[in-house]
C-alpha cells in the first residue's frame, strides 16, 4: 500500500509559524517529496549518497541557509530548522550531509574565518560547487574531543598537520576539511584549519558495513605531514569552545530533523493502522494497544515540536544557551527513535521491509543519537547546567 506523507500537526502548531516560515517548510517538503522520496530507499539499499541532489539543493538555497551574505539565504533559525525537519523527514543521512555542509563547515568559516577565506569558500559552498567535512572525532576521542592527538606544527609560513580523524561525514567527497588540531606553537591550544583534501598526505577512506546513515558518506581521515599555508588557519578559532560552537549549530538542526523523522514514522504507522485489518475485520487502529502507541507518538512529537520551536525562537533572539540546545537534541532524538520503534511494531512484518521508511529511519536515528554529543553526554551537559556540578 502506498503511503503519502501528510504532515503532522495536532495542536495547530502551524498557527505558531509565520506565513514565510510555513512557505519555507512547504517548499522544502515539496522538494523532498518530489526529489528524495522516490530514490531514497534505493540509495539506502545500495549505500549510496544521492550526489545528484547536491546541485538542486544548492539552487533552493539549502546550504548555509541561516548565514547572511556570500549568496546565503539569511534565513531565521526557525526557518532553517524547518528545512532540517523536512530533510530528515526524507532521510537522516541526507540531512546529515546538509548539516555538515552548513553548520559544521560553512558556519566555522563564517564565524572564525578571515574575509579572504569567506570569499574563497562560502559562495562556492553555497552553490554546492565545493563540499566540506568536519574533522573533530578521532579513533580514541569521541565524547571527549579535548583529548585529541591531531597536531599542527608551524614551520616557516606553513603548518604541518599530523593525526587521524574517524567517523567523518562526507570525508571522501569533501573538497575542504575543517580539521581541529592542537597547535604546538600555542601550547596545544585547539584551533581550526582549512585543509584542501587534495593536499599531499591527506587521505580519506570510507567506513563500510554501516547499518545506519547508509545514504550518507562516512570516512576516516588520515593526515600525514599535510602542509598548509599559514593563512589556512581559522584566525578567530580558539580552544575547544570553537568546535563546540559549531556543534551547537548542528545540534540545533538535528533537534528539528528528529521531529521530521518522527513525523514520517508516525504518519506512516497511523495510515497503516487505519488500513490494515486483523481480528473481526477491524483495522488494527481500533485496538487499544495500537492506539496507545499512536497516542504516545503524537504526544511526544507535539511536545518535541514545541520544545524545538521555543529553542529556535530563543536562538533568533540570541538567547539560546547550549543547555537549551542540548535538551532539544537529547529529547527529540530519543523520542524520534522511540516513535520509529513503535511504528515498526505497528507495521508488523511490513515494518522490517524497505517498502516503508520506518526501519531506515530507526536505523538512522541510532547514529543521530550518538553523534553531535551522545544522548548521555547531553544528560551530563544539562545536569551540569542545573546543578553546577560536572559529572563527566
Amino acid at each position, binding site marked *: 500500500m502506498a503511503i503519502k506523507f501528510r504532515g503532522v500537526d495536532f495542536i495547530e502548531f502551524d498557527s505558531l509559524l509565520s506565513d514565510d516560515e510555513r512557505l519555507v517548510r512547504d*517548499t522544502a517538503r515539496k522538494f523532498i517529496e518530489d526529489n528524495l522520496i522516490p530514490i531514497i530507499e534505493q540509495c539506502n539499499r545500495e549505500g549510496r549518497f544521492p550526489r545528484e541532489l547536491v546541485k538542486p539543493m544548492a539552487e533552493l538555497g539549502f546550504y548555509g541557509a541561516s548565514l547572511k551574505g556570500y549568496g546565503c539565504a539569511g534565513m531565521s533559525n526557525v526557518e532553517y530548522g524547518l528545512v532540517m525537519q523536512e530533510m530528515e523527514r526524507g532521510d537522516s543521512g541526507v540531512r546529515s550531509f546538509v548539516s555538515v555542509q552548513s553548520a559544521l563547515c560553512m558556519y566555522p568559516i563564517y564565524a572564525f574565518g578571515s574575509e579572504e577565506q569567506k570569499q574563497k569558500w562560502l559562495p562556492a559552498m553555497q552553490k554546492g560547487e565545493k563540499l566540506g567535512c568536519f574533522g573533530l572525532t578521532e579513533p580514541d576521542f569521541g565524547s571527549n574531543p579535548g583529548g585529541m592527538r591531531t597536531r599542527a606544527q608551524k614551520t616557516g609560513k606553513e603548518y604541518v598537520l599530523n593525526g587521524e580523524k574517524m567517523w567523518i561525514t562526507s570525508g571522501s567527497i569533501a573538497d575542504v576539511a575543517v580539521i581541529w588540531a592542537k597547535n604546538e606553537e600555542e601550547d596545544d591550544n585547539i584551533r581550526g584549519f582549512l585543509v584542501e583534501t587534495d593536499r599531499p598526505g591527506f587521505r580519506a577512506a570510507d567506513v563500510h558495513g554501516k547499518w545506519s546513515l547508509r545514504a550518507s558518506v562516512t570516512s576516516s581521515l588520515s593526515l600525514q605531514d599535510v602542509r598548509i599555508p599559514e593563512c589556512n588557519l581559522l584566525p578567530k578559532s580558539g580552544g575547544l569552545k570553537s568546535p563546540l560552537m559549531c556543534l551547537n549549530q548542528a545540534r540545533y538542526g538535528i533537534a528539528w530533523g528528529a521531529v521530521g523523522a518522527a513525523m514520517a514514522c508516525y504518519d506512516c504507522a497511523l495510515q497503516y493502522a487505519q488500513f490494515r485489518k486483523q481480528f473481526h475485520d477491524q483495522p488494527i487502529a481500533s485496538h487499544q494497544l495500537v492506539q496507545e502507541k499512536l497516542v504516545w507518538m503524537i504526544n511526544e512529537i507535539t511536545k518535541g515540536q514545541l520544545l524545538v520551536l521555543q529553542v529556535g525562537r530563543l536562538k533568533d533572539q540570541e538567547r539560546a544557551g547550549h543547555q537549551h540546545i542540548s535538551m532539544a537534541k537529547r529529547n527529540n532524538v530519543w523520542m524520534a527513535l522511540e516513535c520509529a520503534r513503535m511504528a515498526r511494531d505497528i507495521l508488523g512484518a511490513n515494518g522490517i521491509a524497505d517498502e516503508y521508511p520506518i526501519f531506515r529511519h530507526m536505523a538512522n536515528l541510532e547514529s543521530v543519537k550518538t553523534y553531535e554529543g551522545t544522548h548521555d553526554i547531553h544528560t551530563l551537559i544539562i545536569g551540569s547546567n542545573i546543578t553546577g556540578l560536572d559529572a563527566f
Partner: protein
Amino acid sequence: MKILVCMKQVPQKDAPLKLNESGTWIREDVSYEVNEPDAYALEEALRQKEKHGGEVVVITAGPARSQQVLREALAKGADRAIHLEDPAFVGLDAINTARAFAAAIKDEKFDLIFTGLQSDDYGYAQTGVILAELLGWPHATIIMQIEKADGGIRVKRELEAGYFQFVDMPLPAVLTIQSGINKLRYATLIGIKQAKNKPLRKVALAEVQDALSPNLLKLERLYVPQKTKNTEVLQGSAGEIAKKLTEKLRNEVRVL
C-alpha cells in the same frame, strides 16, 4: 511583456474535507494551496518574462489567508501582487470575480492575462473567459504553448482525443492555461526572503463594489454520497446470466 496572472487559493487536493454546519460548503479548517493550473500559469508567465523581459503581476481575490498564494508567487519571481481581500470572494460567481479583477486593474496596461484553465474547487472554467469579454480582449483556452509571433502570439490549444489547435492572436489577450504546460519551479529560500520587500497592493471589496452585481451562485446543499451495498444473484442458464450481467455492467455500473 507585462503579464497578469490570476491565482486562486483552493483546499488542498488530498486534504480530508468536512462539511460546514449548514451543509453548503466545506469547513474553513483545511489546508489550502495554489490552484494547480494557476501554478502553471504563473510558471509560464515567469518563463515568458525570462525570455522577453517585462513584468509579472499576480492577483487573487479571497480572504486574508489567500495572501499565501501571492507570497509564494512573489517568492518564485513575480514582481508585485494585488490582493482583493474579503471573505465575500469565497463562493462568488465567475462573472463577479471577473468584474472585481477588471475593476482592480483598470489603471494598468497588461499585454497578457493568464488564468488557470479552471479552479480545483468550483471548476467553472469561466473566470478567464468572462474577464476577456469584460475587457473586450480576445481569449483562448486550454493553452499548452505560447510563442511570440509577428504582431502577437501563436498559442497551442489542447482539444479532445489528442488533437491540438494552433491559434494566432493579437495582443492584449487572455489565455487560460492548462496544467502540465511546463515544469514548475520551487520557490528558493532567497526568493522567499526577497518576497518580503516586493510590493503587495491590497484592494478592499468596497473599492470594487460598484462594478459588482448580486452573486448569482447559491449552493443549496452539499453531501457525502451514501455508500450502499446491494447483492443480487442472477438466475438462469449460463447464456442468460451472461446477457443480464453485460446489461448491468453497461447500464447500471456503466463500466462497459
